[in-house]
């Protein structure tokens, strides 16, 4: 049972600043996902917490202990790698029991713990096999079981599902969430997959350029992105942006339509709305239909509003034709506003 505190962590590789000014507190039993594009520093941060990399500045606390001077084995963590890193010379049983043997636990204790975690991960029939004799999905299960068998304070996962095929990934995602909730372990999970992040996390930390740009519950990050990067990174398709100019009495004009907007000294803002937050209505923005993509439950329509691309998700039974003009009304409470120069959210 442990809280993780990351204080002012910075990391430089030669002249390159990989991480700067990282502050993050993960509550006991919380599941935090570090989300970001490749190269944003999320894996480096995880490795610093694990002790596989040393920070150039800052402190790491796990529970009540400062751990950044401790080797990985003394930090009370367990790690799951993207490529699983199953020891090829040991059987599945010995892989799961490896850490327990290092702790010199009694044989009976090792056996019960290995059996219990193996059953939890549904691999109890594979215990005598070697890593070369099991599938990728099974290897993944072994890697998670090996981490869980340690009963660590903190479990760290570096893109653990990325090497699985799409269907298996979905299945493992749900299973992982259930198992981690059950084991009551604090978890930090690194991924570049926004859907994975949304579905797993209690809280998402979005990283960009070596900084944490927003840390909030998934739905907050989705609804109220802190800046344009987060707005564009989350959501598929991403948020729509349209230029807005200041009018009178706190009104902002977007493609000649007035909207209530934030009270600011700026004269230009960016108006943003998610594709699913628009409805067909006579009081909407005038849009020309350019591409229609039926996706089954709904259709994705790419439009042109005053020269800007605008994507919208509509009911699949809405009859549309290319070149047709429609009016799209954004839901008032879902509109976001961004400062066009800094990219930061204004409200």
């Amino acid at each position, binding site marked *: 049972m442990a809280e993780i505190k990351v204080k002012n962590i910075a990391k430089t590789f030669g002249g390159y600043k990989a991480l700067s000014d990282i502050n993050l507190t993960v509550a006991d039993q919380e599941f935090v996902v570090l989300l970001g594009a490749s190269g944003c520093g999320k894996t480096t941060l995880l490795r610093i917490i694990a002790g596989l990399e040393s920070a150039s500045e800052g402190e790491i606390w796990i529970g009540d202990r400062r751990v950044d001077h401790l080797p990985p*084995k003394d930090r009370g963590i*367990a790690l799951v790698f993207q490529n699983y890193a199953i020891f090829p010379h040991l059987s599945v049983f010995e892989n799961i029991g490896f850490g327990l043997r290092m702790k010199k636990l009694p044989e009976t204790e090792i056996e019960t713990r290995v059996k219990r975690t193996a059953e939890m991960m549904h691999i109890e029939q594979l215990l005598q096999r070697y890593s070369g004799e099991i599938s990728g999905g099974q290897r993944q299960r072994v890697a998670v079981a*090996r981490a869980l068998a340690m009963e660590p304070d903190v479990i760290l996962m570096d893109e653990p599902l990325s090497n699985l095929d799409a269907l298996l990934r979905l299945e493992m995602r749900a299973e992982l969430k259930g198992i981690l909730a059950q084991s009551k372990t604090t978890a930090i999970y690194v991924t570049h997959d926004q859907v994975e992040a949304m579905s797993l996390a209690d809280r998402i930390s979005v990283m960009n350029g070596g900084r944490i740009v927003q840390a909030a519950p998934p739905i907050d990050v989705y609804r109220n992105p802190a800046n344009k990067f987060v707005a564009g990174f989350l959501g598929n398709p991403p948020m729509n942006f349209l230029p807005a100019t200041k009018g009178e009495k706190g009104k902002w004009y977007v493609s000649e339509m007035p909207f209530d907007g934030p009270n600011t000294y700026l004269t230009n803002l960016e108006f943003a709305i998610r594709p699913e937050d628009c409805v067909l209505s006579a009081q909407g923005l005038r849009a020309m239909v350019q591409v229609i993509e039926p996706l089954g439950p709904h259709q994705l329509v790419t439009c042109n509003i005053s020269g800007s691309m605008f994507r919208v998700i509509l009911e699949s039974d809405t009859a549309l034709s290319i070149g047709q003009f429609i009016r799209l009304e954004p839901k008032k409470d879902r509109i976001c506003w961004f400062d066009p120069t800094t990219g930061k959210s204004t409200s």
Partner: protein
Amino acid sequence: MIKENISILTPAQILQRHKIGRYLYRTLIIVLCAWVLLPLYLLFVNALSSSKAVNSFPKNFVPEFDFESLIFFSQFAGMTSALSNSIKVAVITMIMSIVIGAPAGYALSRFDFRGKSTFRLLILLTRAFPLPLLALPLAVLFIRTGLDDTIFGLALVHTTLALPFAVLITFSIFSGVPIELEEVAWTLGCNRLTGFTKVVLPLILPGIAASAIFAFVISWNEVFAAAVLTVENRTLTAFLLQNLDTSPLHLKFAGGFILVIPALIFIFAVRKYLFAMWGIANR
């Protein structure tokens, strides 16, 4: 018009060219194989033939399986001590080159440091020094330090020769073990040393054995330094070089046979790892 006729080939001509290319390719392979195998075959035939057959004409191309010269050889004075010297030197060379070479190979594969690629090149360059150039100053130095005519002194020289290969082979073996395996071991309660002994060592052991055997063969085959630096404690190669010069032909063949066979067997046993050394087959 004429130009076109020259440059465009008919399908038959293209087929013809393919055939010629294939013939050339096959011929080259046969020539290369013969280059290596023919001398070995003749050695084999003559070593297993009686002295009469070896010296007669026309030559025999089928071995008689006559062990007369080999048996004579095994009873030759000084032969067994030379053989035991050879084995001793080779074993010491093997141990020293692994003990010194494997840590260097590990460092090359695991750490990034300034001048790493230059270092790799320099390791190979140590082989560029012709041994005759080194042998004389070495002999002088060895006599001064009292290392001359000792097993250990010779093993030192052989280690120098085997070390570049030991470093490069172990480098490629260590590179074949993903760093994540070690990292996971560290998080599971290992320090650097136990992580190495519990995870890396079991995985690389066959490769290390191969590298060791290669060092053994290098020492086994080396003749120049052995001939210059030893007088009483000659190794087999130096001993044979000294004695075969004046021996009859059939004994020369038998001596060659004794030298070649162990080296051949060893190299054959570790061939898979020697390919890996050059990065051709990374298991």
